[in-house]
């Protein structure tokens, strides 16, 4: 029985580590194997694993061939992890970290949830019509079509996707369709990412200012060019021409609809899923990331993950890209106390009340 055992390893650079191992003690009978002997055992194991990997690769090749013969998909439903919630919840940050894992890829806001979900909600009065393409009585049929549509599109977008890879679909703006997508692809994993709605509205108010990132970078300019601004079906995050009061009310309503639908999907989903609060991610990024992967049953290398977390930390964002009016604004929680007026806070709390109480039962972030 060793009296003292020490294992120290320090990452010096990517793939280069210094280590120091020390075992010392007193035993009766056989001494524990030396590190050299342990290394020999491990070498044998590595050889066996290599053989198993080779066998796996052969099987993957066979599976690809069979799927091709059947007209199957490059990206399997089980290889997808959806990030739902709503805008301004830190989904870009989370998705970027998840994208950087080995064999991981990220699809940045395809809005497939908006395509199907928004249409489904707007056509609620037609759902009982037997001819309607998304009618209730034909739900299994069109869910299968939605599934194929997503997988076909993902395959076209990621033609060289690794069989054991992970496709992170960051879909905050498409969260209105979360229930449809999760029902259509039940093997997929789901991340429900939430944030205090008051912080989201504060962030939206900042983005709504002319000259801010939302105006400059997002769709407003393009929508203007196409004459779509102010149209009946303009998305709620189209801020153009809106007063502060309207932005506050619209964003709170959007939160209720998008996070509400995401929660419905989350509750109904029997597969792998995890609920993440932005505030927890901010407070303990590495710990929360480990929890996410653990609950989604996705293997990640702990050291790689730590490196990824470091690379995507707030400190690593160039100073000129951060601040008021920019996409990376504060990277803090609870700032709504400074940014929103009492009336605005009241409006947000009234509209989003049920969700706010559920995700933030202590009343604060």
């Amino acid at each position, binding site marked *: 029985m060793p009296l003292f055992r020490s294992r120290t390893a320090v990452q010096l650079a990517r793939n280069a580590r210094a280590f120091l*191992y020390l075992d010392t003690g007193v035993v009766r009978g056989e001494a524990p194997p030396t*590190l050299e002997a342990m290394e020999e055992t491990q070498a044998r194991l590595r050889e066996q694993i290599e053989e198993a990997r080779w066998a796996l690769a052969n099987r993957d090749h066979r599976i690809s061939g069979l799927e091709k*013969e059947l007209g199957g998909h490059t990206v399997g439903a089980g290889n997808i992890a959806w990030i739902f919630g709503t805008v301004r919840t830190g989904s870009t940050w989370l998705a970027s970290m998840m994208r950087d894992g080995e064999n991981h890829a990220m699809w940045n806001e395809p809005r497939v949830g908006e*395509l199907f979900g928004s*249409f489904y909600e707007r056509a609620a009065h037609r759902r009982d019509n037997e*001819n309607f393409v998304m009618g209730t009585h034909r739900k299994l049929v069109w869910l299968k079509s939605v599934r194929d549509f997503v997988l076909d599109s993902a395959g076209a977008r990621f033609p060289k996707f690794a069989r054991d890879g992970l496709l992170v679909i960051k879909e905050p703006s498409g969260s209105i369709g979360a229930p449809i997508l999760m029902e259509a692809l039940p093997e997929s994993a789901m991340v429900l990412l939430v944030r205090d709605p008051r912080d989201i509205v504060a962030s939206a108010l900042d983005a709504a200012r002319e000259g801010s990132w939302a105006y400059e970078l997002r769709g407003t300019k393009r929508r203007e060019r196409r004459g779509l601004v102010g149209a009946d079906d303009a998305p709620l995050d189209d801020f153009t021409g809106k007063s502060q009061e309207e932005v506050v009310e619209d964003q709170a309503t959007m939160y209720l609809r998008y996070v509400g639908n995401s929660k419905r999907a989350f509750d109904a989903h029997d597969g792998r899923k995890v609920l993440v609060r932005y505030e927890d991610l901010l407070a303990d990024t590495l710990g929360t990331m480990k929890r996410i992967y653990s609950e989604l049953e996705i293997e990640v290398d702990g050291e790689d993950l730590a490196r990824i977390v470091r690379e995507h930390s707030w400190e690593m964002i160039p100073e000129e890209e951060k601040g008021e009016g920019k996409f990376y604004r504060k990277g803090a929680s609870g700032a709504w106390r400074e940014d929103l007026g009492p009336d605005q806070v009241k409006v947000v709390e009234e509209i989003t009340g049920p969700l706010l109480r559920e995700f933030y039962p202590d009343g604060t972030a």
Partner: protein
Amino acid sequence: MPVYRQNILLEVARGIKAFLNFEAGLTRGPTPGEGGGIQSLEEAHKRLEDRNRQIAELEKKVRESRSDAPAGDLKPENVVWMFGTARVGSTWLGSMMDEPTGHTMWHEPLVGALFGGFYYGRGAHRGGKHGILGGPDEKRSRAIRAFILASAHEKFPEVSGDGYLVVKEPNGSNGAPLLAQALPESRMIFLVRDPRDVVSSNLSGKSEGGWTAEAYKRGRRQGTPPPSDPKAIVRKGAKKYLEFIGRSKEAYDAHEGPKVLVRYEELRADTLGTMKRIYSELGIPMDEDEVARAIKKHSWENIPEEKKGEGKFYRKATPGGWREDLTPDQIQMVEDITGPLLQEFYPEQQISRAGV
């Protein structure tokens, strides 16, 4: 590669040994003695088992697909789109085309509204490679094609072989270009009507007591109710005409499959002659007696009197009724908004310019 290793073993008493294993160095791979090897091997074996299961299932499916390939599916070239906009007589034309043996009508699936409303509207700013309908046309078309054919096949398994599926899609015509691109071999009817009559019919249905207004009132329709202000109804109706007929025209002009342009007014004036032209230009064989029977069955005279009249779905069926129904200001508004289309499809008509 370790740079220093020391293993010491000393017998300090009988049967009792003291040991010291020390190792330090630099490595690019896993550090020596790092745990997880056995776990990884087990994981590899577990994955192999999963793969073996998958292969067995897929091989079974391949065997089944070889022996039981579904026969008699709907042929994409036998899909007949009917585009235009609401209130152009598509229900009437669609009902007549539903009658011949082997022909079936799909009444407003709204698949065009699903894709068109997003592509040209809500999602228009996501036309890049990330957007679900963005990127190369062929990729988008392939996904939409599969969606349409799967839905049509499941809904109408009986339409196969030489059968035709007429998809009446006036309210989905805002997606006409996408649907036509997805099924380039399909056939297309582009049904137009004088926009002033279309708006006049719209106004009647949406005014107090009209069939559309009542549908909202009784909860048969949900969402934002139509405006009650006649001026707003007229403006909205004219803009919808511009958008939906405009998209239909875009699809019609680009479509290389069989296609036919039909004016409602001609269909009213000479129904049998126009029907014969439709089938002829679409290359669809027709039995004249069968079509004549369909025309008679769906004629204006055969619609019960109580279902016809002002504010009802079947209102006038009279081209040119707008002259009595619209005010000079309303006429001018429609003509201003729909001008280019009005002149293209009705070049023989003088623009009235506000009641001239």
